[in-house]
């Protein structure tokens, strides 16, 4: 298990290094001056530029430049935004938690809904329930997310008026920014209207979460169905039947765990997809997350913001990847051993 952990951390380190390499090379690949792209100081005077050039070691060779960039990134300096002239790290600190909140909530919703439905479909294989589930899943997967988002707003916010259509929380509530995660901040705050604020924030979350979760949930349905069908065909299930266990016992004690092992493997992969959907959804629901900010930065040609935002977002996705790998190892004893696991 220690070797497994070290290997994963090793992987994390090298992937982050590769990502910084990519983001560093972007400063050269984007139009304009590399130094200005890196630092974001578009209105700098020649004197300021000279100081910056010294800081980023732009007179030296490319390796020293990369090294200087790395030390900037790891000391928390990602430059300033070309559009707002604010330090990017501060903006990301506010925006990234909102995205994490939305995407994790959507991931959990997709898993808790999709996986059990997939299992049910597998257990009722080639019966009516299976066909209905597959049809609905196909339908759900085919709906474009921007259209679904607009439909959801149209029906639930405008016609029925049940749920708010935009933002993270009503402006009435003033929540102090502590961790950046809205829900945690509300629970930490000592406001008298804490529970009303909590309800309001939850109501704001429902629509975007459901919209983001729909497509991944349908993928989980199909993944879980395939995994369960495969497991139910294994000889240990037949042996368990011969042992005299009931069908329920077999499903709960043996089938679900083995099928989950297969599903968890793919959750990490699906997460990147989910974050992409979340970015589009953030724009539709005016969710103050990093996705919307990134898309706006692309429109404004804010190169500094784009490269730093990409770096942070992909690091986050990769971190989730590593975490799912750990869950996988916890579920699967075969993966924990160095000679079996990858």
């Amino acid at each position, binding site marked *: 298990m220690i070797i497994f952990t070290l290997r994963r951390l090793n992987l994390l380190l090298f992937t982050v290094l590769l990502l910084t390499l990519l983001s560093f090379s972007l400063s050269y690949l984007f139009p304009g001056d590399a130094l200005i792209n890196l630092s974001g100081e578009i209105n700098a005077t020649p004197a300021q530029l000279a100081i910056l050039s010294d800081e980023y070691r732009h007179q030296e060779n490319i390796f020293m430049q990369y090294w200087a960039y790395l030390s900037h990134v790891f000391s928390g300096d990602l430059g300033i935004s070309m559009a707002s002239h604010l330090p990017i790290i501060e903006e990301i600190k506010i925006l990234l938690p909102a995205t994490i909140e939305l995407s994790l909530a959507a991931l959990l919703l997709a898993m808790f809904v999709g996986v059990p439905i997939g299992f049910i479909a597998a257990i009722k294989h080639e019966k009516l329930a299976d066909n209905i589930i597959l049809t609905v899943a196909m339908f759900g997967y085919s709906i474009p997310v921007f259209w679904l988002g607009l439909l959801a707003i149209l029906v639930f916010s405008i016609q029925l008026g049940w749920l708010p259509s935009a933002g993270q929380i009503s402006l009435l509530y003033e929540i102090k920014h502590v961790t950046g995660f809205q829900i945690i901040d509300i629970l930490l705050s000592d406001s008298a209207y804490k529970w009303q604020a909590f309800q309001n924030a939850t109501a704001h979350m429902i629509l975007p979460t459901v919209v983001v979760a729909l497509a991944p949930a349908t993928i989980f349905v199909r993944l879980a169905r395939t995994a369960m069908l495969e497991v139910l065909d294994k000889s*240990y299930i037949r042996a368990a039947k011969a042992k005299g266990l009931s069908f329920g016992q077999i499903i709960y004690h043996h089938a679900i765990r083995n099928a989950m092992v297969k599903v968890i493997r793919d959750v990490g992969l699906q997460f990147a997809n989910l974050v992409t959907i979340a970015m589009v959804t953030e724009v539709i629901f005016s969710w103050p997350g990093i996705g919307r900010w990134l898309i706006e930065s692309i429109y404004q040609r804010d190169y500094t913001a784009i490269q730093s935002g990409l770096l942070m977002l992909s690091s986050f996705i990769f971190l989730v990847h590593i975490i799912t790998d750990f869950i996988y190892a916890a579920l699967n004893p075969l993966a924990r051993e160095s000679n079996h696991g990858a």
Partner: protein
Amino acid sequence: MNLLDIRNLSIELKTANGTILAVDRVSLSMKEGEVRGLVGESGSGKSLLAQAIVGVLDERWTVHADRFHWRGEDLLRHSAEERKRIISKDVAMIFQEPMSCLDPTTTIGSQLEEAIDNNQFSGNFWQKRKQRKLAAAKLLHKVGIKHHEVCVKSYPHQLTEALCQRVMIAMALARRPILLIADEPTAAMEATNQGQIFRLLASLNQLKNMSILLISHDLENVTHWTNTITVMYSGQFVEGGTTRQIFTQPYHPYTQALLDSSPKANMQLPKKSRLAALPGSIPILQHLPIGCRLGPRCPRAQQACVHAPKVKNHHGHLVSCHFSLKGGN
């Protein structure tokens, strides 16, 4: 009284091109305390027959039988669920490739514990847990695993095939079965381990009077451990009788060929001569011959063999052949 009495059991596989009769009217009976060998080439339907008895075939297969008695009780009158409940109470089965028959993500201990019947214990649930642990350890001792503490905590992939098979036998014993069906228990195992597993089964048979249905493709090996033998070929009954009858004087050409095909130490063979074997191979399910399925390969086949022969009984030695080696039909 017969423990198990099966008459004309057929197993059909439903495919897109119609149904295939995989097992064709096979009869089998077991007495109490008997060790019966079920012998045939791979693909002759031995495993299917065993799985049909235990009731673990999936819905692609349909099973018919004229008679299915368990300890004098007619099981055909019960529903499939009820039948499986009665059978799984007294009949246990161990499979080939034991490692794949154990859940890879659960420890041996918990898999063993769940096989133990709850009503063997008394007292409250915390007492039961302790008793359950103890019972699991005892079962492991019974099958000759001394270090139960290590074994209970390990996962199937950490044990050898032979140890896994012992664990499977321990699980089978957990329900205190009257009949144990062993489906090629030593396939892909070393000779020493094979011997150990067979000796273990033999001792269980002698000490607990447990009947064993031993399925194997190795006639030679099976004769050491069994009282009676049933030979199958391509889903049809071939010959049945006591081990001595089958081994010393087989009536069916197929059994004769099986015996001839096993090389002996004192065999005088000229250089580069072929070993005795039937020509061809066992037919695949999609292209089964009509009548006696051995027909195309049989050295004694004649025109009458396009009709399936009736089973003839010669003093308890059953044979299904038109032109059996008995002579003077």
